[in-house]
């Protein structure tokens, strides 16, 4: 070997020659957009924790964090518990605001870690199966295939192996963020918030990595607006067959089951079904799999005893699944390092030996960290135990339910501990008299989402959840629905078609129903909201449990909304992007609008893109049943992109919202980047993270949150028309704040012209300038003047 001493160069040599050296990576000219031309890197490639802080502060100047402490104390270190009421600080010096923000950051870090560890596992698993160089090809219609990665990392991934760079970056950032939660570090609530926003952004990134990896490597639909309808509901599985149930989020083990069933030609002999996002992703992988439903179905279905084998992977799985399964002699296979359940690790054991141990009850369940082996073991076990289990009587019959219900002492604590205080006690009392209608009313529409807290509280150990499961068995025929299989990203061609109508306001908004099933009054509220906006020409996007919930609703003609509306990303389109990780495609679509329609470069250009989305893309997220830390991270992440989110009432338990103040007019001023003028704006969007008390309030708020400063007068008319219409429908009047959204008379919807004009007159309204390029970012140079300053 010849060792060559490095030559000494002048200090400015590297800079002057513009030479870049990267160890391990080949730095190539980056291209962006459709033109294929090299693009300039923006100011914030791979932004570190503090690099987007200025943007966060701008957001929080307008949308000040609103704290609703869930706990008055801090119990994270041994100085504590510390009482933080009445302005008191804890032993470390933290105050109640900073403590709430710290808990929000922690939640967002957990959420981001859950999605991203899932993505990392999938990525390495798929690289092992398909190879490092397996291409990222989302088909002819998607050139901007990774808008979040492009914006944050500064380049487009071409292969599965390329995704590792984004993954490495995300993991490093999340580590720093989690570190800030340690006692005696950050002390400012707004800086905790800035970090939470960064954690949310990392969550978005992790999800995009995970979903792109699984789409390309497992050949899931690639932005297919005609993705097939898949069967959904507890009534769709053939109970005479062996049944493997997959619960969780990571498709690898479910895919292993499907592969084995196909390889062995057992498709007609074994049912493979899923709950929660695992269900969505196995049906993206293979449409013969069936969706039982969202997370709310978990205990109902497990208690019914229908599943012979329960394969659990990660996230949102009942942690007592093993105990529940044991009660009805079902077998549990844990498949990831996130959830081992105390089971023996049999990954390296012979599959047939594991099968024998399981069916002979030598082990309670098995931890198998190899998806192919999971597929083989789960299928074989299900086939061998199904007949015997079929003979088991798993649920009480109706007479027994009546007898059990007679044990009720009417203490009422079942209702008090219920998250929604639904009338469980009345339902049990009714059952004790042979009237099951009240219990049916709670079962229907997931009014009871079977968290099981009532059962835990019952002093007479009445098996309320088993009673609920039995009630459901009587209604199996009704529980057959469908859902459009998750299509993944939005096509570039669709963005080209709708970019202008969305930005100019002709399509009144893009509304995304996402998240979990912690619904305040049952699942139909989500479908009703989706239907309301579909009928009004909005684009409705959905994912995860929200997507399943929407599919469980049938309209007056008996159709599901997926049967009634197309999967196009267009007005009146109902677009199921897929599972939790597919949520990344929703901000992804907004980013693509900025890139494809407005030609904004993505690479390293987060602030400009987010500013564009905030001021011009009328998108609004709705997480009506959000419960998890992942949902906290999802919402916080899209907030940072400038997309407002409406939560259900339980969302206040996240401890923090971002609320605007319409009475503080100065916070709505905008910089018109085209003219250099500072102009008075409107409260659009009024809030960044809002929690509504009921569906009616949420519906009106969603319509309002789609208004953007950039709307043309025609677009503003349309948006105001819907806002006024819905306000009249649910509140009975023309909204008094409508004058704030009228810039010029042309903005006034014709249908409501007289009413609105009356309000304008009453409020002393005067016309104001419409900004041409509205922004909350600073001017590059000093502003020229203040126009129409009032």
């Amino acid at each position, binding site marked *: 070997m010849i060792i060559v001493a490095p030559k000494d160069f002048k200090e400015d040599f590297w800079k002057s020659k513009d030479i870049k050296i990267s160890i391990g990576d080949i730095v190539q000219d980056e291209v962006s957009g459709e033109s294929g031309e090299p693009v300039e890197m923006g100011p914030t490639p791979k932004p570190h924790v503090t690099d987007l802080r200025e943007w966060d502060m701008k957001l929080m100047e307008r949308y000040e964090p609103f*704290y609703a402490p869930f706990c*008055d104390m801090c119990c994270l270190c041994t100085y504590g518990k510390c009482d933080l009421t009445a302005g008191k600080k804890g032993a470390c010096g933290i105050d109640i605001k900073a403590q709430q923000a710290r808990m929000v950051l922690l939640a967002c870090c957990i959420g981001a870690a859950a999605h991203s560890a899932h993505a990392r596992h999938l990525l390495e698993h798929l690289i092992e199966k398909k190879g490092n160089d397996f291409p990222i090809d989302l088909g002819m219609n998607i050139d901007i295939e990774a808008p979040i990665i492009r914006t944050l990392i500064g380049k487009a991934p071409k292969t599965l192996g390329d995704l590792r760079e984004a993954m490495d970056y995300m993991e490093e950032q999340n580590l720093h963020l989690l570190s800030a939660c340690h006692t005696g570090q950050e002390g400012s609530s707004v800086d905790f918030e800035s970090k939470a926003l960064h954690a949310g952004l990392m969550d978005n990134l992790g999800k995009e990595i995970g979903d792109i990896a699984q789409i390309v490597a497992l050949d899931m639909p690639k932005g297919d607006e005609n993705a097939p309808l898949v069967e959904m509901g507890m009534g769709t599985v053939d109970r005479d067959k062996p049944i493997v149930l997959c619960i969780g989020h990571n498709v690898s083990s479910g895919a292993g089951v499907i592969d084995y069933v196909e390889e062995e030609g057992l498709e007609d002999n074994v049912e493979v079904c899923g709950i929660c996002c695992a269900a969505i992703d196995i049906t993206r992988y293979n449409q013969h799999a069936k969706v039982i439903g969202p997370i709310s179905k978990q205990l109902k279905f497990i208690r019914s005893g229908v599943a012979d084998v329960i394969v659990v992977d990660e996230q949102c799985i009942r942690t007592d699944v093993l105990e529940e399964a044991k009660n009805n002699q079902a077998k549990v296979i844990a498949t990831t390092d996130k959830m081992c359940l105390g089971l023996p690790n049999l990954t390296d054991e012979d599959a047939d030996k594991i099968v024998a141990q399981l069916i002979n009850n030598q082990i309670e369940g098995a931890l198998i960290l190899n998806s192919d082996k999971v597929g083989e073991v789960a299928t074989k076990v299900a086939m061998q135990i199904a007949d015997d289990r079929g003979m088991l009587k798993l649920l009480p019959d109706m007479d027994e339910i009546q007898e059990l219900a007679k044990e009720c002492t009417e203490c009422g604590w079942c209702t008090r501990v219920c998250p929604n205080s639904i009338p469980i006690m009345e339902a049990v009392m009714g059952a004790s008299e042979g009237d099951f209608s009240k219990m049916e009313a709670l079962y229907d529409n997931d009014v009871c989402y079977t968290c099981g807290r009532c059962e835990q509280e019952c002093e007479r150990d009445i098996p309320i959840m088993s009673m609920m499961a039995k009630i459901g068995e009587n209604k199996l025929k009704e529980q057959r629905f469908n859902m459009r299989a998750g299509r993944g990203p939005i096509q570039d061609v669709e963005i080209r078609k709708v970019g202008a109508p969305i930005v100019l306001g002709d399509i009144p908004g893009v509304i995304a129903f996402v998240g979990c099933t912690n619904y305040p009054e049952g699942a139909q509220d989500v479908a009703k909201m989706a239907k309301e906006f579909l009928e009004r020409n909005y684009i409705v996007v959905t994912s995860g449990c929200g997507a399943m919930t929407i599919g469980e609703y049938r309209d007056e003609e008996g159709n599901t909304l997926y049967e009634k509306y197309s999967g196009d990303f267009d007005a009146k389109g109902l677009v199921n992007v897929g599972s939790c990780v597919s949520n990344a495609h929703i901000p992804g679509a907004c980013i693509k609008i900025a890139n494809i329609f407005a030609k904004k470069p993505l690479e390293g250009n987060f602030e400009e893109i987010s500013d564009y989305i905030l001021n011009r893309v009328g998108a609004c997220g709705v997480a009506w049943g959000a419960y998890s830390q992942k949902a906290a991270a999802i919402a916080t992440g899209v907030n940072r992109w400038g997309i407002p989110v409406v939560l259900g009432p339980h969302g206040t338990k996240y401890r923090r919202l971002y609320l605007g103040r319409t009475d503080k007019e100065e916070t709505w001023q905008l910089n018109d980047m085209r003219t250099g003028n500072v102009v008075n704006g409107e409260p659009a969007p009024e809030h960044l993270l809002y929690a*509504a008390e009921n569906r009616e309030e949420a519906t009106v708020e969603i319509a309002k949150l789609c208004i953007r400063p950039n709307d043309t007068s025609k677009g503003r008319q349309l948006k105001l028309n819907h806002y006024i219409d819905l306000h009249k429908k649910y509140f009975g009047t023309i909204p008094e704040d409508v004058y704030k959204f009228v810039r010029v008379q042309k903005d006034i919807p014709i249908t409501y012209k007289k009413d609105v004009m009356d309000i304008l007159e009453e409020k002393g309204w005067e016309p104001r300038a419409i900004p041409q390029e509205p922004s909350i970012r600073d001017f590059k140079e000093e502003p020229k003047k203040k126009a129409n300053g009032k």
Partner: protein
Amino acid sequence: MNERIIPWQPTVIAGPKQAMLVTPETAKMMLKKAKRPLFVIGPLVTGDPIMKLTMDISEHWDLPIVTTGDAYKTFGDRGIKTTRYGVVEIVNLLKDPDWKGIKGEGQHDLVMFIGCIYYIASQGLSTLKHFAPHLKTLTICKFFHSNADASFPNMNDDEWLKYLEKMKSD
């Protein structure tokens, strides 16, 4: 422990600071003492006799009403003019000592709640407990709210109606 003062949803207990249990008599004393009280009515107030009682209470004590959720329509349909806010919006305004209040006359010093969904009300009351030392909160629902400054106890409908009846007079 006295079941009347365990929070209706028991796990909303946030810490050592708990609401004071009040009778209608004490609640009325609080109203008498207040200079700028406000009445916040949520969407669970939907029909008589509760609606009528809340309207009578509002009239007797000359309380401006803020309605949350869709209660604005419920009251509007009965010809009662109220001011509509989301419950998180009105709480956000109430925590600001510089807010000018519903009538523009200054921030309120007492806020009385009824009919908001229990757990979101509890969260809003927590906000005010921590960040609005300039005002007192009073809840007259049939559920004990530990995050309020003062609250009626848990009680059945009959007892609650009697409590509300008493609130209609000095």
